[in-house]
């Protein structure tokens, strides 16, 4: 039996050595923990983070739970990260409350924490000293502006009546995630303003509803309705069934899918986007706008099935957050950075400056 035990032990040690081969600790280590390890968005951010690591001479370690909903796993990762005594921690919290205790320990141990992407909204520990993120309200506004500039959109909105109001649907994956909420805020309020500016008859005729969080009644019978829908869970199946329901609402003029998961749900409920085809699609009259990138969304935009999308700049987020973290580790003061948002459609999608931002 001794022999067996030795063999098993040796195998264990060997595999560990092999597995840890890829990870090496440098002089100054910064740990970056995303909301999900596999997500393409965060993979792009990690590329930026690693680039910044090279530029600023720090070693970057990336980590994250296997899904955004796996809060316990991320909490454990944050705790373990703090045990490592990194020079700084960069974090996008799945659930801001659940990491508070761990962040309090970071504060105790004087480990600076930098938020990225959605960051750690409502942090009470005081450990988070800055965030590198898209200003999502602005980004939502960019979507609204581009939609409102479209002549097709303007024509339909103007033609709408109170008996047959034009519907603009918003598919928000989650009503608790800060980034999606802000994006939705930015979109609905900016769009209301822009639509009311199109024609005097539309002033006061735009209503916002669908969710308690977004409820602005119109002052006269609504001819344009902005309806926000949140699926019961963040599961792909639920997103898809909500998207299906939206497509069937009569006189839907436009749909805004507020993040990559919502976009994917919409694409999968339209036969991989073919039903959105401008010429032949079943829903060819609906203007679909998306957010973020990803290969499905890029294809949909390139083919014209999507009217367009707004992308955040994950590369910049990763890069800026590591830059801030490296500065904070050196004791320099840091301040929040807006990493920006860009509109892209079938015309500019392959321009080099845009293509750089579009992760797969």
């Amino acid at each position, binding site marked *: *039996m001794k022999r*067996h*035990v030795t063999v*098993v*032990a040796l*195998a*264990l*040690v060997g*595999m*560990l*050595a092999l*597995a*840890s081969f890829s*990870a090496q*600790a440098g002089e100054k*280590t910064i740990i970056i923990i995303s909301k999900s*390890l596999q997500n393409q968005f965060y993979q792009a951010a990690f590329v930026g983070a690693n680039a910044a690591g090279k530029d600023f001479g720090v070693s970057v*370690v990336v*980590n994250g*739970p*296997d899904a955004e*909903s*796996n*809060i*316990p*796993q991320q*909490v*454990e*990762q944050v*705790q*373990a*990260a*703090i*045990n*490592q*005594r990194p020079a700084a921690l960069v974090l996008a919290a799945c*659930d801001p*409350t*659940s990491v*508070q*205790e761990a962040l*309090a320990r970071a504060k105790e141990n004087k480990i600076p924490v930098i938020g990225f992407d959605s960051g750690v909204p409502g942090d*009470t520990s005081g450990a988070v000293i800055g965030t590198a993120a898209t200003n999502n309200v602005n980004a939502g506004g960019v979507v609204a502006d581009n939609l409102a500039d479209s002549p097709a959109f303007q024509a339909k909105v103007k033609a709408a009546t109170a008996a047959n109001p034009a519907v603009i649907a918003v598919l928000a994956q989650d009503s*608790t995630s800060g980034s999606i909420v802000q994006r939705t805020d930015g979109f609905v309020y900016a769009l209301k303003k822009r639509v009311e500016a199109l024609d005097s008859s539309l002033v006061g005729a735009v209503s916002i509803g669908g969710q308690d969080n977004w409820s602005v009644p119109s002052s006269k019978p609504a001819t344009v309705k902005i309806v926000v829908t949140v699926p*019961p*869970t963040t599961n792909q199946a639920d997103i898809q069934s909500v998207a299906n329901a939206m497509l069937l609402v009569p006189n839907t003029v436009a749909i805004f899918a507020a993040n990559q998961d919502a976009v994917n749900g919409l694409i999968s409920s339209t036969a991989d986007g073919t039903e959105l085809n401008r010429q032949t699609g079943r829903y060819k009259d609906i203007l679909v706008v998306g957010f973020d990138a990803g290969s499905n969304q890029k294809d949909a935009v390139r083919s014209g099935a999507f009217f367009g999308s707004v992308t955040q700049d994950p590369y910049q987020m990763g890069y800026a957050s590591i830059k801030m973290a490296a500065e904070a580790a050196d004791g320099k003061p840091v301040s929040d950075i807006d990493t920006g948002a860009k509109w892209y459609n079938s015309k500019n999608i392959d321009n080099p400056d845009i293509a750089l931002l579009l992760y797969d």
Partner: protein
Amino acid sequence: MPINRLIAYIKGPGQQKAIALAALAALYTFFCIFGSHFASRETLISIFDSSYYTGFMAIGMTLVIISAGIDLSVGTVTVGSALVGGVAYTVWHLPMGVALVVIVLTGTLFGLINGLLIGKLDLPPFIATLGSQFISMGLCSVVARVQTMRYPSISHPDGWFKTVFFKTVSGFPMGALWVLLFFVITVILLTYTKLGNYTYAIGDNEEAVRLSGINIANWKVVIYTISGFFSGLAGIIYAATFSSITPQTGGGLEMYAIAACVIGGASLAGGVGSLTGTLIGVLVISVLKNGLMSMWLPVQWQQFFIGLVVLAAVLVDVIRSKKAHNAK
């Protein structure tokens, strides 16, 4: 003399435990050498802190496994009862103390249901607890209206219950004291009471117990209810550890509890197992978890290595019993 007796114990009935303990020491040493900042007091406390909820689940699971049963519902019951406790606190606005009692009661209730299904209705434990795994996951999510439940942070006045577990008293983590307290209580139950004796006896040969005129159904109800009670306790610690409880999660946590029991020498065939072994198993898992994270390894490696350790534990057990059989 005591040394000789210790050696005899290690060679005899305590062998699996001794091997598990040696493995624990070896793993710890390994990570101290190869992990970064692993050999620190903080990490040691983290190892303890992240083991409490698995520890409570595993204590209850040990009883169940010794009785030749299995409880697949402990993971979802743990999270489910934490969820219901969160509803009690945030929706029904009950004081935190009452909410904690609600957590334990919810867990105990599911345990009682398991016990009645298995003891009184004679359902196979695997099926009964598989059913209640889904039932607890679904029902508790419905009670929470599928909303994530949030417990107050440690700095909030109602966050006092977290300090009960996550404060250190003269360097010793409080949570470990709680686990130790319930460990001792359960050891007493297993060693000095009829409950313990019948738990082993039912696992060993249920028919013999029945023919001795013992009411097996009632004892099974008690065993599974205790498992549910410990799931409730685990629920409190789970809430304290993670603050935010997401509905429809918790499936899979029971596997860590089962793994801990097996690493500690419990046999799924029943009749064999010890709480000390289980506790060692819990620590092995926790050291692996923290150690692998300290080596910058992605989380999936944890599952891989815990799987390896479980297989190694079973292998050691198989080799050992084969040897014992040949020696006879």
